[in-house]
């Protein structure tokens, strides 16, 4: 199986650490990059010459450039609009969820508060994305709340 490339943008150091640890423990053939805010994420994505990541996890509330703004830039960029974007947020309000989807998010994750749940949620998102990429499915219909 081909290596799965993942990026997480989150300003919270602990959240980044748990995420990294969870990905490592899943023991997939994956490659993770961590960035600390939206500006850094967009710079990272735009500078990439190599193939784009399979999945971008995006925290909603980040200083300087927030998740929704990144999402808008990704969906209006010719180069980036096909990316799978998973919102990784502490909010579980119906309005936030709906707004993210309408603006083009594929996945909405309500940040789990225990480590085992982080692992199972990440596995579900990564494996579902893998199916979309390998089973000729219409990615426009890829919306999922976990």
């Amino acid at each position, binding site marked *: *199986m081909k290596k799965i490339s993942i990026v997480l943008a989150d300003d919270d150091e602990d959240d980044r650490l748990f995420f990294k640890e969870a990905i490592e423990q899943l023991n*997939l053939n994956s490659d993770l990059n961590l960035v600390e805010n939206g500006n850094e994420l967009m710079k990272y994505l735009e500078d990439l010459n190599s193939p784009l990541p399979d999945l971008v996890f995006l925290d909603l509330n980040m200083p300087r450039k927030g998740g929704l703004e990144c999402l808008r830039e990704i969906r209006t960029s010719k180069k980036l609009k096909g990316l799978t974007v998973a919102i990784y947020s502490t909010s579980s309000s119906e309005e936030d969820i*709906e707004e993210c*989807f*309408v*603006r*083009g998010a594929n996945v*909405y994750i309500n940040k789990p508060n225990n480590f085992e749940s982080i692992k199972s949620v990440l*596995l579900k998102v*990564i*494996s*579902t994305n*893998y*199916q979309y990429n*390998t*089973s*000729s*499915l*219409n990615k*426009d*219909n890829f*919306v*999922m*709340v*976990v």
Partner: protein
Amino acid sequence: MKLVLGYHAHTVVKKVIETEIEKFGIAYSYTDSGQIEILNELCPIQFDKLKKNLLDYGIYVQENQKEQLVQRIKEVVDEFIFSEENYNYKTSQYISDKLNLSYGYISNLFSEVTLNTLEYYIIFKKIERAKTMILSGEYNLTEIAYQLKYSSVAHLSGQFKKITGLTASNFFKIISKRNYSLTEN
């Protein structure tokens, strides 16, 4: 003006493959769905070029035996989901009969290669089909449940929620709003 398109994916794929292969002037024949036999020798450079050209359309050349079999399993699952006949036996029996392999072997191989269990994949594909049917606006949930061989609407709704985290009506609302906001901007 808005056009609503219907298409037959298999025909599209076949046409693309034919066009691409003919560019190389190679003799070939279709042996089975998704399988092509190249009748004369293809040099490695041509082969790589063909692989690359097909990849532009999202068509992969499966080189590894296990991946080939997984591809066949996926096709059989699709046949089962899209078929309008009512089979009296279970999905597992259907898949196993079609591939002439034991279901245990098929399902182990599937999990090994794809990150998902085959059981999950079957449900997942049925829900994807349900999504397309919901968005077409031509069917209500009762009709969709019947066509996808669910015993009841409640069963379909339950699986929809389990796979997507959304209710079917919420899904419809979100996609409609998204399409609306895209055409506005």
